């Protein structure tokens, strides 16, 4: 029947592939620092000193931003920058205040002078340093109101880190300057550094990437979308009358349900393998990392199979309870989106508010996603995923039981 229904084929097989390619490409470029993905930002330099020069150079070096300091050959003013950003033409403007370099230097000299004089070391210098009060300087950031909080936080943290480094460097330089040329130079490299230890398979480090996060998440989402055609077909069977034939022949209802389940499981698995094939073979041609399924395919298939069970159970329940396609299609799609949202497909569960994290644990998509991540990113064994796949199967049994009981009750007069 499916081969005669092009619409059905597109919904079941083509749409998930388009979805997974589009989402992975978008997500990948969000994190990737490639030259063609640079974000243009405005820099208003009212300082024109050493500090602002260093900020400019650091921003340019970051490979994330293209720094624009002039529009139509004219240096940008704060008002122009503010207007452009608030209208959404640019996502960010950085305003460096006047005399930042000079005032920072003065402030550092004052502080260093004070410290050294306490040690009786700077008689000659302390006299040279003006002791006037130096006002705090503010580097202003303007953000396009449409940018996401995560982008804002990342930029603010980077700018803060950059300024701190410049300050630290200046402090070291001031000490060195005050203590004389013959003093050994301070090492300015950070003493504490961070190193991410990633999981290893054998001696090979497995570095997680957007593909490994996205493919399982959106594969699961596509598997659950089977709820819609399945429930619609069940309602069609009721309205066409084929339901009557299926329930008046000697084949037990359990076998009819079993037949449906097996058929739709086959569709789920075809969907799954198609999406994996796209991620393994097509993604590298689109500039994305290939999905690494080495040694994981069997366990991934098991997770997909049990996720399929859960999705089919839900589809059968909706198809049993709904009276019309107009009820089942919007409900099925909306409910799937809700399960995906609370299950962590879009936003990781750890980033959700605490009460939502509890709710997330009740989403079968969350169980499936965790099992996929266990297999793909945490290199779990079959034993490790037993709790998740058991929950998925229990969800299937529960939904099927409710559907059968509801159907039985409905067919009593």
């Amino acid at each position, binding site marked *: 029947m499916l081969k*005669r*229904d092009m619409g059905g084929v597109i919904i079941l097989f083509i749409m998930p592939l388009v979805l997974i390619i589009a989402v992975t490409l978008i997500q990948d470029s969000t994190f990737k620092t490639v030259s063609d993905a640079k974000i243009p930002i405005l820099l208003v330099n009212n300082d024109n000193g050493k500090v602002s020069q260093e900020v400019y150079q650091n921003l340019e070096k970051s490979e994330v931003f293209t720094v624009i300091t002039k529009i139509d050959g004219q240096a940008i003013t704060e008002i122009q920058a503010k207007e452009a950003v608030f209208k959404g033409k640019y996502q960010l403007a950085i305003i460096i205040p006047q005399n930042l370099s000079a005032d920072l230097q003065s402030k550092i000299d004052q502080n260093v002078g004070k410290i050294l004089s306490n040690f009786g070391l700077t008689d000659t210098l302390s006299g040279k340093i003006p002791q006037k009060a130096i006002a705090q300087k503010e580097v202003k950031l303007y953000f396009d109101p449409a940018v996401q909080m995560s982008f804002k936080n990342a930029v603010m943290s980077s700018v803060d880190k950059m300024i701190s480094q410049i300050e630290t460097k200046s402090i070291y330089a001031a000490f060195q300057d005050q203590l004389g040329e013959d003093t050994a130079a301070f090492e300015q490299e950070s003493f504490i550094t961070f190193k991410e230890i990633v999981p290893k398979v054998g001696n090979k480090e497995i570095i997680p990437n957007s593909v490994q996060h996205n493919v399982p998440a959106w594969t699961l989402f596509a598997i659950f979308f089977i709820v819609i055609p399945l429930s619609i077909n069940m309602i069609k069977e009721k309205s*066409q009358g084929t*339901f009557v*034939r299926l329930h008046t022949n000697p084949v037990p209802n359990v076998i009819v349900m079993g037949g449906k389940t097996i058929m739709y499981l086959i569709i789920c698995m075809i969907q799954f393998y198609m999406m994996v094939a796209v991620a393994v073979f097509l993604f590298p041609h689109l500039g994305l990392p290939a999905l690494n399924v080495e040694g994981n395919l069997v366990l991934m298939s098991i997770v997909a199979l049990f996720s399929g069970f859960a999705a089919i159970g839900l589809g059968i329940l909706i198809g049993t309870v709904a009276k019309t396609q107009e009820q089942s299609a919007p409900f099925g799609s909306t409910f799937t989106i809700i399960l995906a949202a609370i299950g962590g497909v879009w936003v990781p569960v750890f980033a959700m508010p605490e009460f939502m994290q509890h709710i997330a644990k009740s989403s079968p998509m969350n169980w499936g996603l965790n099992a996929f991540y266990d297999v793909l990113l945490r290199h779990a064994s079959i034993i490790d995923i037993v709790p998740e796949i058991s929950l998925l199967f229990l969800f299937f049994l529960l939904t099927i039981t409710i559907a059968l009981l509801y159907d039985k009750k409905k067919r*009593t*007069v």
Partner: protein
Amino acid sequence: MFSLTDFTLSVFEGQVFGLLGPNGAGKTTLISMLCGLIKPTSGHFTINGLTYSENDTEIKKIIGVVPQEYALYPTLTARENLMYFGSMYGLKGKQLKEKVDENLHLLGLFKFADKRIETFSGGMKRRINLIAGIMHNPQLLFLDEPTVGVDVQSRNAIISYLKKLNEDGMTIIYTSHHLSEAEDFCTDIAIIDRGRMYAHATPADLIAKTHNARNLEDVFIALTGKELRDDI
């Protein structure tokens, strides 16, 4: 819809039993119960001495059902539909294929066997619908308005075929709004309304016993009244 009340009825082997009544009288409810589609909250019935609670599969093997709707998959061909539904009664292989071809021939649809149901006219769908219900030679056949919405030719073909099946020993329980068709086709008739049975006899006896009745329609109006049965 009225639930059935104080309803006692026996249908004997070889009868063509007509259940007649206005819309919402309870005909489809009664047939649905007898087919095992819905369960009565009280009362009981047996088919060949068997009950659904104890012999569900055995009963379903000996009954055939032809629902009011075209209970067919529209994107499948006539042959594919019949092969599928026939296989559910244990028919398979050569036997199944022969059964399909034989019935398609008998109802004049053999040349359309490999066309999709969605391309069929109402009359053609009705005939395929009928074949799907009798592929396994049931002892008892339930027909819920088998000729509704079809042209005269298709109706004649369907009724002639049903008469032949009955002559071969098949018992038929049938509902219809075509009273002249029922008068001609049925050996026994029960007139029901508002979930109750108003009369039960042969068509000739019903006409004879009703004052001034010349045909079944007069009997029907005399028993169920002229009041419109609009209900939602």
